[in-house]
């Protein structure tokens, strides 16, 4: 979706302003926000793509006014409600009022190290041969899906070169919407700065994205 998350090339946000010796957390609630988000995800009711889509579905004004942990929590409330774990009445009361759906699993403290060490690999076997090889010229699709996609706007309808052929990976555009993993091969595609940004582009710049097969056409 052409949502607030799709930031590449947008202007007006000001300087980066890195904080010297930045702490991992700026308030105790951020610690809890991280943990609650990971524990809730571990219930197994949604996947990382649905999470990302919930975050980018915040109203743009809300997204830009929120810190990243705030974005996480706002999206988490949406996911918990969507999947029947939390109700508006629970949230209004600040305590459990309504019954909850049954989760696939509950992450216990003693299992956290193993779960974090395992992660959530998203590579999947794909039966088809790679359509492209390193050096091939490709053009990204120009599309504007209303749902989740990982092809940023700045890289749509652009010609680039395949640099690396990757494994098959879960396709976010369907997986975010409960329409299955439908794995596709991923390619790293490199664009000249001028192809993307045109006049005034930094002549020394190249930008790469990792693109699922269906984002690409032969150039």
């Amino acid at each position: 979706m052409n949502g607030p998350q799709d930031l590449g090339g947008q202007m007006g946000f000001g300087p980066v302003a890195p904080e010297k010796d930045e702490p991992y957390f700026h308030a105790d609630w951020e610690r809890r926000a991280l943990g609650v988000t990971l524990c809730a995800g571990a219930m197994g009711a949604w996947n990382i793509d649905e999470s990302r889509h919930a975050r980018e579905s915040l109203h743009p004004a809300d997204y830009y006014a929120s810190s990243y942990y705030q974005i996480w929590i706002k999206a988490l409330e949406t996911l918990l409600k969507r999947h029947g774990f939390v109700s508006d009445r629970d949230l209004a009361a600040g305590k459990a009022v309504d019954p909850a759906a049954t989760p696939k699993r509950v992450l216990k403290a003693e299992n956290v190290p193993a779960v974090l060490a395992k992660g959530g690999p998203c590579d999947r076997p794909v039966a088809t041969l790679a359509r492209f090889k390193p050096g091939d010229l490709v053009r990204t699709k120009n599309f504007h899906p209303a749902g989740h996609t990982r092809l940023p706007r700045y890289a749509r309808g652009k010609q680039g070169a395949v640099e690396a052929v990757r494994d098959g990976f879960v396709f976010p555009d369907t997986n975010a919407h409960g329409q299955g993993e439908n794995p596709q091969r991923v390619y790293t595609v490199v664009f000249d700065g001028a192809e993307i940004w045109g006049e005034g582009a930094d002549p020394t710049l190249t930008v790469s994205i990792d693109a699922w097969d269906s984002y690409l056409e032969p150039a």
Partner: protein
Amino acid sequence: MSHNHDHQHDNELDPFAARVRALETILTQKGLIDPAAIDVIVDTYETKIGPRNGAKVVAKAWADPDFAAVLKRDATAAIGSLGYTGRQGEHMQAVFNTADTHNLVVCTLCSCYPWSVLGLPPVWYKAPPYRSRAVIDPRGVLEEFGLTLPRTTKIRVWDSTAELRYLVVPMRPDGTDGWSEERLADLVTRDAMIGTGLAREPA
């Protein structure tokens, strides 16, 4: 969004702190989460998994050409051989800076970051100024980190749009011949492994 230094960090009346606490309370009362699991997660990312992991990977690559070759070919395996695996490090690629080319990593679409080697991302990495400008004005961004590259240096920006996570291997500073991996690792900063900095020069 940048951190606001004026607010009270642990003020119980902070509405967002109350909102998170309420959510944790609801989920705990329903038996959906284990609050002790949150403690373990936080402790893991506050004390165990951080940029020191990545620094050891880079230092080993500098000191050991065989390891560097494996890191270049199969970063997930090479990094895993040092014990760094797991969440947001499942599919790794190391990208090596050279005299000609400087690498810079961003996630314009969210905040993808190689947690297994760098830990949790800093606020600026997740915030709109960096995510919007890294791909269109990387030199301007680097200037804000105090890094001015020669006009002739090529800049390669890696936008982490899929599940691959990128670790920049900065160039080894001169004057470090014969240094141990441990000593070398002290020169490798988090920013050097994102590409918003270089390795420290030896003192």
